[in-house]
């Protein structure tokens, strides 16, 4: 409780601002359009502003502890639960990711013509508030609580504003995700009970478990609960079937926030909680993670190639890319975990961008069928440029954040004899993603327009990106490029933290360290200072 500083109140504001704005909008059926937008903008802007502010105030020397700590009782103290907020090197990037994608999704949603806009924006704001809380929680219970809190608006938004087949998809997604969430909740309660820490605080759990690690069997069992619980939430193969269907019918804002940010919850949990606290469990389940992740990459990769529907393709591709993050995690090394973290952030930005642009394309083509489009670039060059940028990022081209993530994960895999072979199938996955990504670009934007779409193109109804579409796209692309050029803005703090959490006696650590941060980046860094 000692180090409560005023900055920690900003954390609380970042969570509460969207919630308050959302509550106001909930009763805003009679508000004018301007009022609704103003209230929504208030809620969407604060998390990112505060995120950037806190990033600038971030104290990197506090390794192993949390910045901006805040600890409030809520009535669950008897079982060791406090509303304990704070940020460390691992949660900071995700906190910023949530703020960025939230602002982009919010800006786009504010100008989309949804039925009952006040309700739509209110739910989106609730979701954002939950997300900010998830990544700002030090208490593992509240970490879970905020995630579930963000999940319910997703369900409602899919059900109320989703496309065809939304009723089934919404229920399937909710049942699946509840199963995953409850399994991970059991895992977290098990950690609480077994550790004897009498606290759900991650700091205390870490202190207790590093002093007295749990027996191997217990670790294996708890790790299994967390792995499969979180795995379902991250659409780990073969628990992925909810994701493509859900995303295909979800309204844009929900898809952006869920695929971009909320889905990272599970990976974040494995990275921040399961990996460091249960090292023996991680070792035990290592081969499972690898094989299932390869299932994501190769099997889902091939399924993605077979998709004819743009949104289904994007949904599957987001499932596929999670495989790389799992591979990074499976190394349980500083480098692998760091790569997974970078990939999570970059993938969050790129997938949100692509989901948003796919709706922009739909508004122009009235179809998601890839084979029924073509030649759109001639009429909408900016849209084409943004979509190409998103696809390239998603494939992992240098210059975008995803590259560093995937590159680092490959480096981590190549590190030991045990994992070196995985590089080959994983690299095949990159080729697969290049094939479907480029084919989608070619089908939509180039070549001869087909059928009805040709008539629409001719008749001049099709416009390029509007201002309200350009702004969120610009924000997301800027984020991707920024991480692509300066991965260091996140990786430095994360590395310091990860070295503490994943103690490794490997002598080659410094070598890899320099691989994460190539020399040209150092050069840039010097210029900026």
């Amino acid at each position, binding site marked *: 409780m000692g180090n409560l500083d005023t900055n920690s109140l900003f954390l609380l504001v970042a969570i509460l601002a969207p919630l308050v704005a959302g509550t106001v909008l909930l009763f805003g059926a009679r508000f004018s359009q301007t009022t609704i937008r103003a209230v929504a903008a208030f809620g969407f802007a604060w998390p990112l502003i505060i995120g950037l502010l806190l990033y600038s105030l971030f104290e990197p020397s506090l390794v192993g502890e949390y910045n901006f700590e805040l600890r409030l009782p809520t009535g669950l103290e008897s079982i060791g639960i406090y509303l304990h907020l704070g940020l460390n090197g691992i949660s900071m990037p995700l906190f910023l990711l949530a703020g960025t994608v939230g602002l982009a999704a919010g800006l786009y949603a504010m100008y989309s013509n949804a039925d009952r806009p006040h309700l739509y924006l209110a739910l989106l704001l609730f979701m954002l508030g939950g997300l900010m809380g998830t990544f700002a929680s030090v208490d593992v219970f509240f970490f879970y609580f905020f995630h579930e809190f963000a999940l*319910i608006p997703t369900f409602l938004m899919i059900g109320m504003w989703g496309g065809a087949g939304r*009723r089934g998809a919404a229920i399937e997604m909710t049942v699946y995700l509840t199963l995953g969430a409850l399994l991970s909740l059991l895992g977290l309660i098990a950690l609480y009970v077994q550790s004897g820490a009498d606290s759900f605080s991650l700091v205390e759990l870490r202190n207790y478990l590093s002093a007295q690690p749990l027996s191997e069997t217990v670790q294996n069992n708890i790790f299994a609960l967390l792995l499969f619980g979180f795995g379902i939430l991250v659409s780990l193969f073969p628990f992925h079937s909810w994701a493509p269907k859900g995303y295909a019918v979800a309204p844009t804002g929900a898809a952006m926030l869920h695929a971009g940010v909320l889905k990272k919850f599970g990976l974040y949990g494995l990275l921040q909680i399961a990996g460091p606290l249960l090292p023996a469990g991680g070792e035990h389940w290592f081969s499972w993670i690898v094989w299932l992740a390869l299932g994501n990459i190769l099997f889902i990769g091939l399924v993605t190639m077979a998709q004819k529907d743009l949104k289904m393709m994007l949904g599957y591709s987001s499932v596929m890319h999670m495989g790389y993050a799992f591979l990074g995690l499976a190394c349980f090394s500083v480098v692998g975990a760091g790569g997974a973290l970078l990939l999570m952030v970059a993938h969050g930005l790129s997938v949100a961008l692509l989901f948003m642009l796919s709706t922009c394309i739909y508004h122009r083509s009235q179809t998601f069928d890839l084979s029924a489009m073509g030649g759109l670039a001639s009429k909408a060059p900016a849209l084409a440029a943004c979509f190409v940028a998103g696809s390239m990022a998603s494939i992992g081209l240098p210059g975008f954040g995803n590259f560093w993530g995937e590159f680092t994960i490959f480096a981590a895999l190549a590190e030991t004899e045990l994992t070196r072979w995985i590089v080959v199938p994983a690299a095949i996955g990159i080729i697969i993603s290049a094939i479907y990504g480029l084919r989608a670009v070619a089908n939509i934007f180039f070549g001869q327009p087909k059928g009805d779409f040709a008539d629409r193109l001719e008749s001049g109804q099709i416009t390029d990106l509007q201002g309200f579409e350009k702004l969120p796209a610009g924000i997301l692309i800027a984020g991707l490029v920024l991480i692509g050029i300066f991965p260091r803005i996140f990786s430095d703090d994360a590395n310091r933290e990860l070295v503490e959490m994943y103690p490794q006696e490997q002598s080659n650590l410094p070598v890899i360290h320099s691989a994460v941060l190539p020399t040209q980046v150092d050069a840039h860094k010097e210029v900026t200072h």
Partner: protein
Amino acid sequence: MNELLIEFLSGFTATNEWAAILPEILLGVLALGLLGAEMALPRSQQTRWIPRLAVWGQVIVLVLAFTCAGCCSFDQREYFSGLIAQNDVTQLMRGFFLLSSLAVCYLGKVYFVRQSALPKTEFYALVLIISAAMMLLVQSAHFVMLFVALETVTVAFYVLVAYNRRSQFSLEAGLKYLILGALSSGILLFGIVLLYGIAGSPELVASSHDSLNYTQLMHFVIPNMDNLIVKIGALLVIAGVCFKIGAVPFQIWVPDVYQGAPTPVTAYLAVASKAAGFIVLIQLVSGPFFGLQDFLVPVLSVIAAATILFGNIAAVTQRNVKRLMGLSGIAHAGYLLLGVVALMRGVDWAVYAVIFYLFTYLLASFAVFGVMSLSAAADDAIQELDHYQNFARKHPFLGGVLACGLGSLAGIPPLGGFIGKLFLFVAAFQASLYGLLIIAVIGVVISIYYYFGWIRESYFSAPSTEVVNEAACPSTAGDRFLLGAFTVASVVVGLLPAALPIIR
């Protein structure tokens, strides 16, 4: 004036044992007063004044029960030579029963708007009597007291379930409840008699003259825990209680009775009657049957697992929402049994986890039953899921209340039901009930399907042209206030569990 009254009462209570059960006595007087008022008031005034008298009378009793020294002691105390024992649990449950009978009276008022041909006064009088009897039931520390209180509750419920005598469903429900209720009372009584007989036998160690007293029986059971008759007697008593809480395999009456009974009575059965059963069960297993843990833990574990699975799986296919609430209520009984088993395995605070869960269940259930009462058509027993198509678009407020209530029942953050489940799960974990926990998780996942299926009907249906149920839901400001209060309370308890100061 108020202070004077309290002063008088506290002086009175210091010297008189009857003061300990003052709230119950007042409820009884109020019930009789209502019957008197019916005779005194002209017919035209009855509809206006009798519900008000019932509601405000209970509010006064509620305030009194928690402010007046002497009848609100949280310490462990015994009265009437051990017939009645009061502690913090019974005090909390007094509040619980008063709150639920208040809500039931209010729902009754809503119900009688549509069923105006039915007699009204008896309904309120019976609800009050049940409330008083349930309060005595959880305070009883003697099997005679237990049985008398339980029978008062049950007999009054026979009448209430069959209250809508024009409806075949209601009559059928009444008959089923009567037959199975009588059977369960018989089983319970037989168990009590067996225990009485064996505990009074001078051949056995620690035999007692007053063997129906909980404490005496506990001292007898501990050294005689391997005695077959003791085991059979305990099992029969537990079976009788399991009828009341609707645990498998004694759940058979639940769907039909819940469907046929008037909606306020269904709510009363679902919330208060179940809660009373659980508190009695807890008092039995931690009191007289304390020595039988090795024998009862496996039995109750199996019952809990079967109850969770049966309730959830059976609810999936239901289209009638009253039956759905009944079957899902069985599932909730299963989760609560988890807490009881945890308590028997030595996790003492599990009793508060159970009470916390009961309170969140009360808040959520009355919100849902309130919406059901308001949106019911002329025939109260036929409330189908299809009637809720597009409900939220027509009635945004009631739709929101329904969604929050169902979400809380499903155990979704940030609603109270989630915190309730959390406490139960943590308690079960501390008692190492891993198998039961997995079954509970499976049950919760199944329950998502039907609870969210209901929300789906009300929110996600396309605006339909055909009007299925145009009962118009004439909700008054008072209805909205009450339902809004239940919903806000659910949210507040979910966000700030300290608002419900049960677990300290």
